[in-house]
């Protein structure tokens, strides 16, 4: 098992280097740098002045050298300087990440129990009316992307009923201004996890040991709770963790939609404003988050599944 983990860590490290390099080379392409030069120094610079500005600031060196320098700084915790906020990136990004963390916390708190419950209820008796209607509900929620459901929820709860607010204020959250963003992400996320749980549950319910338990006269609910659930929940666990890149995209959309100034909002506005260091830092933080969840998923899978743990 240790060898497996070590292997995973090496792959993870390699992935991180590749991805951060990709982000770095795409953020620092020539047109972006020129725009940066015009923004930073003087809007009415001539072409050769732009070139000399780039030369002076070290953007003309080979890409690998620049990347090495950036990586060296990033490892020691220095992500550079935000040209838009006019302060170090570290002071910008971590508070925003905290705001998004709160959002994610509530999303997970609501999504996981609801999705698992729907999945288990649908999957424990395959093909029944409950199964069909819950499955169609799950299909329905995955079909409506967050930028659609968020707007529809806003019209319904904010414009029409007037009980919730269509704008969320980061750092000062109340039920009224925080419920809609959470609801929107939860609605999009529930369907997928529920369908995975259902598939896993259907598979487990068809296995021999469940039939044995039923035949020895155990009540149906007891079989489900005592025998089926444990095995049926292994797959959804990995799915929930591997879902993370997807969830992150949902979070970016929702933060933009509801003007919630968290990490996703920062990522989008930094990219729009050509704030190179912030975009880079956001990109790398996003990638690190995704890879961390993948590692957690791997380790969790080993712990949950004895067949792997003892082999």
């Amino acid at each position, binding site marked *: 098992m240790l060898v497996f983990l070590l292997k995973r860590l090496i*792959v993870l490290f*390699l*992935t991180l280097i*590749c*991805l951060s390099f*990709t*982000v770095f080379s*795409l*953020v620092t*392409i*020539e*047109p*972006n740098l020129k*725009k940066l030069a015009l923004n930073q120094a003087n809007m009415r610079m001539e072409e050769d002045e732009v070139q000399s500005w780039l030369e002076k600031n070290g953007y003309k060196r080979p890409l690998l050298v620049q990347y090495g320098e950036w990586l060296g700084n990033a490892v020691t915790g220095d992500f550079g300087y935000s040209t838009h906020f006019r302060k170090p990136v570290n002071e910008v990004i971590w508070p925003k990440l905290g705001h998004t963390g709160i959002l994610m916390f509530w999303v997970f708190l609501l999504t996981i129990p609801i999705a698992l419950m729907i999945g288990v209820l649908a999957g424990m008796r395959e093909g029944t009316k409950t199964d069909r209607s819950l*499955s*169609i509900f799950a*299909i*329905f929620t*995955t*079909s*409506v*992307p967050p*930028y*659609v459901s968020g*707007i*529809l929820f*806003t*019209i319904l709860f904010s*414009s*029409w009923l007037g009980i919730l607010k*269509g704008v969320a204020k980061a750092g000062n959250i109340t039920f009224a201004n925080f419920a809609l963003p959470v609801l929107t992400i939860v609605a999009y996320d529930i369907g997928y996890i529920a369908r995975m749980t259902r598939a896993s549950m259907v598979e487990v319910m068809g296995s021999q040991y469940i039939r044995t338990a039923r035949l020895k006269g155990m009540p149906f609910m007891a079989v489900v709770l005592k025998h089926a659930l444990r095995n049926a929940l292994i797959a959804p666990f990995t799915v929930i963790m591997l879902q993370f*890149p*997807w969830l*992150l*995209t949902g979070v*970016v*959309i929702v933060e*933009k*939609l509801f003007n919630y100034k968290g990490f*996703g909002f920062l*990522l*989008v506005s930094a*990219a729009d404003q*050509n704030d190179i260091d912030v*975009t880079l830092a*956001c*990109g790398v933080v*996003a*990638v690190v988050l*995704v*890879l961390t969840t*993948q590692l957690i998923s791997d380790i969790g899978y080993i712990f949950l599944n004895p067949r792997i743990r003892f082999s």
Partner: protein
Amino acid sequence: METISTFEIWQTFFYRLWPVWLALAITFFFGLQFRKKLGPLGYIFDSKVGLIGLFIVLFWIFAAIFADLIALFEPLDQSGMYRRKPPGTVNTEAGLPYIFGTDTLGRDLFSRMIYGSQIVLLIAPAATLVAYVVGITLGLPAGYIGGVYDTVLSFLANLVLAFPVILLFYLLVAPGVRETILPNIMAGIFFIIPILFALMVVFSRFSQRLNVLIPSTLIILFVGAWLYSGLVFGSDPLGLVGIEPNELNIFAAVVFTTSPGVFRIVRGLTLDIRTRDYVSAAITRGENPLFVMIWEILPNARGPLIVDSCLRIGYVTILLGTLGFFGLGMEPESPDWGSMINQTRSYIRLVPTIVLPPTIALASFVLGLNLLADGLREQSLKD
């Protein structure tokens, strides 16, 4: 301001869509008549859910085809007098009603929604198709041969999949990127793969029959080179095939984010199917690996792949909507659904209905595809 009633709005709506209803009626009539001959696709008529999905998807396909007949106004026509009007307002000059209202530049939302379907229904399936060919061409050998080739490609696929899609879009579909040759390089790689795939298909089947092999290879090379020059370099000698730089950029980015998922599915299916007896039989017969992969494994993987392609077109539609929502890549005037949502969403306090046409259009199309996929899966499991 002259208006028409809600009943008249829906009356006009149903009346304007007559080509769609007619085409739907004809399709379903013949579909039911010949359902036995349609093979796996005929099973869809046995599933209620799948049938509803098929209905919605066909509705949008026909709406895109007959957009010129259905739309009341031109999608880009602006009108200073009729801005942000509620549904049912009549344009007295033209004598035509804005049945779903107008947007902030006085453009008819109904017509834009109908024309928007053309953009969405062209790019989403086309990008999915290219992503599929790329995924199949790389995934079949990865599952069949394995080894270093598989390790490297799987690593690369996981690399792309670990990116949050939105970050990738912001990096790949930015105006700055369009000034570089990066989109052309990506498109150049993605569009060469279908040509290679077509060559492999022909070669693996007819390698012993030169009288078929040579002409078909020449045709593929000729057509391939023609399309390739038009799509990647924008220099089609006949001037028939062309793609705007921003569309090429979108296309390349969508294919790039979608193909790793296809690769993983094809690889998994290949790993499963290559253990079957008919594959061993083909190997024993002395068929070359190319033939086994393309003519033995691929046709037997079609069931799950058809279901997945329906889901994936829906997913790509959502991706395109995301691009439009963030104002990335699409023309600012573009009537595609994502951009329409982005253009109208600031005004929902003034006119709540302003954002409904594009949102409901997008959600219903994706729902249709997902229901269709569910119906197909259900029926294919029964066999």
